[in-house]
């Protein structure tokens, strides 16, 4: 009968397909596979341009690799042999010469620098790009401001090949801020063609097209699925990368990403959960790289404006009640630098981040609660659902511990984008949160998280005049190179932060990467994204 024959043929087909996998590569395919990198992560970009409205972090990776900056950080080798960017060393990228004056810095552009469509890069493009960065608003403008790059007037195209940035004040962070992702160089002529009255900077175009001079260009982007990059063979920003093609796939399930790596079907799995990392490291089949995230920490943040945490003794009680070691063992699988158990809350070094003087001491916590005069407390502990892998076990452990000192909590998982809204509202009494600043200086972290400007990252809404004095003092001292005053002020603000404890540091997390054994050249960057330009596939 026809039906039975059909069924028979389908079974045969299914059987043959199943047996055929894994695929047998034809020689041509094998060759191209060698020059292509397959990178898998949990999330993909929602916009290829960091200047875009609401661009997410994966979007920064696209911008980093497809656009150049005037200068970039040099590299250094860490103790374990892995590569990292060097905070204090700058090397030319699009500029071949940097001349730092008293209140300005002048750059000479590389003569052979060209955009990917062939037009040469001129100082006009640099000025247009910098103007764009300070004008689009949102995160890019704020980041420029962090290095005192605020007004268009600061940016001067002296001639076709010379570009100058005038300082509005002395700021130690200005030069480093020129090397972050935001001041990328855009093809102004191309973008002006795509600009409209409503969109003078061509943001609509750069959302899904790369218009830069960088080492890679995006040739295909399926949002939520994959990004395909191809190498710009005429790249002048540095040594030509080895990889001709990079395919970046979004795989939401961490189990699937792990399975892909262990079966050799993907080259790099980036930003692994701590558990997967520690287990895969034990298995030893892959190259496992791990770097502490600079200027970053997970902390328990308490809203100091509203009860119950406006009471300093209550906050300190909580600081003694947190099960720090349990968190590092069970939630982070040991892959974290502890930020507790230091000698004292009066610190003696300017290292950042560094341990507080708190440790798990339930007796002390109970005593402080009694001293505080606050009765039994009923509150919520919130965290970003997108970070649930880490935050949830942490929250559960904290909840259990706080229950023992009379603080009852319900756990509030805040989904995705709502997290930003909730942070902006500053209404969450207690939250498990992570912050890390791009510019690895303590005063930078404190500027965002503790200063009176009460930025969105200052989730505790902590505003304190003495703290501001320390922070401003440190920044001013850094700007003119007064090392002693700088050290005093830094130790001052760190100690005050630890005594007042609007936010309780717990640990410094690591950025974990798994790569096949034939992959080398991966380097840790402050932006915590992958730089394809240095990666080699043997």
């Amino acid at each position: 009968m026809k039906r039975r024959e059909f069924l028979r043929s389908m079974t045969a087909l299914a059987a043959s397909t199943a047996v055929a996998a894994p695929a047998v590569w034809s020689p041509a395919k094998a060759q191209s596979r060698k020059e292509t990198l397959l990178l898998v992560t949990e999330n993909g970009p929602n916009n290829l341009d960091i200047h875009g409205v609401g661009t997410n972090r994966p979007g920064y990776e696209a911008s980093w690799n497809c656009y150049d900056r005037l200068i970039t950080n040099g590299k250094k080798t860490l103790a374990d042999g892995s590569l990292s960017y060097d905070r204090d060393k700058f090397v030319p990228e699009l500029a071949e010469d940097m001349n730092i004056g008293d209140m300005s810095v002048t750059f000479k552009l590389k003569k052979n620098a060209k955009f990917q469509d062939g037009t040469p890069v001129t100082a006009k493009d640099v000025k247009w790009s910098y103007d764009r960065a300070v004008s689009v608003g949102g995160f890019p403008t704020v980041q420029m401001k962090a290095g005192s790059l605020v007004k268009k007037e600061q940016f001067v195209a002296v001639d076709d090949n010379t570009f100058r940035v005038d300082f509005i004040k002395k700021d130690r962070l200005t030069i480093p801020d020129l090397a972050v992702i935001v001041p990328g160089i855009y093809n102004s002529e191309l973008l002006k063609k795509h600009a409209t009255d409503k969109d003078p900077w061509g943001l609509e175009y750069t959302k899904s097209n790369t218009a830069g001079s960088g080492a890679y260009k995006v040739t295909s982007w399926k949002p939520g699925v994959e990004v395909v990059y191809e190498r710009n063979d005429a790249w002048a920003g540095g040594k030509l990368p080895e990889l001709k093609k990079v395919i970046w796939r979004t795989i939401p399930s961490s189990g699937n990403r792990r399975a892909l790596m262990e079966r050799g079907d993907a080259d790099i799995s980036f930003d692994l959960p701590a558990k997967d990392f520690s287990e895969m490291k034990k298995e030893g089949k892959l190259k496992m790289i791990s770097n502490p995230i600079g200027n970053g920490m997970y902390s328990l943040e308490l809203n100091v404006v509203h009860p119950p945490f406006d009471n300093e003794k209550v906050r300190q009680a909580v600081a003694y009640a947190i099960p720090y070691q349990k968190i590092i063992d069970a939630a982070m699988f040991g892959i974290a630098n502890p930020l507790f158990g230091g000698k004292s809350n009066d610190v003696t070094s300017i290292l950042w981040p560094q341990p507080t003087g708190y440790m798990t001491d339930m007796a002390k916590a109970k005593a402080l609660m009694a001293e505080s005069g606050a009765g039994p407390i009923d509150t919520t502990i919130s965290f970003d659902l997108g970070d649930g892998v880490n935050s949830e076990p942490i929250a559960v452990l904290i909840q259990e511990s706080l229950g023992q000192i009379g603080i009852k909590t319900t756990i509030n998982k805040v989904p995705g984008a709502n997290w930003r809204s909730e942070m902006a509202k500053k209404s969450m009494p207690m939250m498990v949160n992570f912050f890390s600043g791009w510019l690895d200086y303590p005063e930078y972290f404190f500027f965002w998280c503790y200063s009176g400007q009460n930025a969105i990252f200052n989730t505790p809404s902590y505003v304190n005049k003495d703290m501001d004095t320390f922070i401003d003092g440190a920044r001013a001292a850094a700007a003119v190179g007064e090392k002693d005053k700088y050290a005093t002020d830094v130790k001052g603000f760190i100690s005050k932060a630890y005594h007042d404890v609007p936010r309780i540091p717990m640990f410094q997390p690591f950025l974990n990467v798994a790569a096949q054994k034939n992959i080398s050249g991966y380097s840790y960057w402050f932006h915590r994204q992958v730089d394809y330009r240095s990666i080699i596939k043997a």
Partner: protein
Amino acid sequence: MTETTLNASAATALKPARNSIFSHAKYVIAENPVTGLAFALFALIALAALIGPYIVPHDPLASDTAASLKPPTFAHWFGTDQLGRDIFSRVVVATRLDFIIALASVALVFVAGGIAGIAAGFFGGWTDRIVGRISDTIMAFPLFVLAMGIVAALGNTVTNIVIATAIINFPLYVRVARAEANVRRDAGFVQAARLSGNGDFRILLMHILPNIMPIMMVQISLTMGYAILNAAGLSFIGLGVKPPTPEWGIMVAEGAANIISGEWWIALFPGAALMIAVFCFNLLGDGLRDLVDPQRRT
């Protein structure tokens, strides 16, 4: 010899059945042993829900990070999870919550859907049209996404999960109740009740509702299983109950990521419990249907 056996069996056949429900039930179960199994399982689940929290060996919320991620041993029959909590205790204690979610959703939708349905079937006209429209509108949504939307909008608490499940099952109950009420609208006993002076609502509640109960019981049983699965699906997305509450679905979701790394026990045991409970409710539904209305067997 044959004569005596023949006489004995003839005698039993002639004896009238004493308690008709019981012997009818025994007959149904004998014909279909699976139904018997389902009833037994249901009793076990109800028992676990009632006394579970009192008899479990470990505190389901107590963490013990030194013993985290251990496979099943004598100390921990189902092993431990990432925070060292005993999975066996959590699975048993979760029975109560899942049972409550199932019961509450079903009770809510039965009352709301049942009443709306019989009103629509009995009165017809505009009542029928309005109820029909509401029902159709709900059915036109992809149901799971609707449940997600409701929970996302209202917040993820057990109450909202129950409400969401009730809403998405509303059309089904309306349809069944309506069909039944329609059939019985002009039945003799209803006309007799009307003649005796009973008002419409009294007829609905006292006469029609009890008569459609048997059919609804079947539907109820099936919905209970679905309610638990729904809650599990929502937990997987991140919209389920709040941690550290033990609930089968959220435990499977937590354990799902661990399957690849070989810690199969974290997801398997709650998953098995989930499956057994839903399975039991489904089979129970079939059994109840056989018991109540054998003609409708599917």
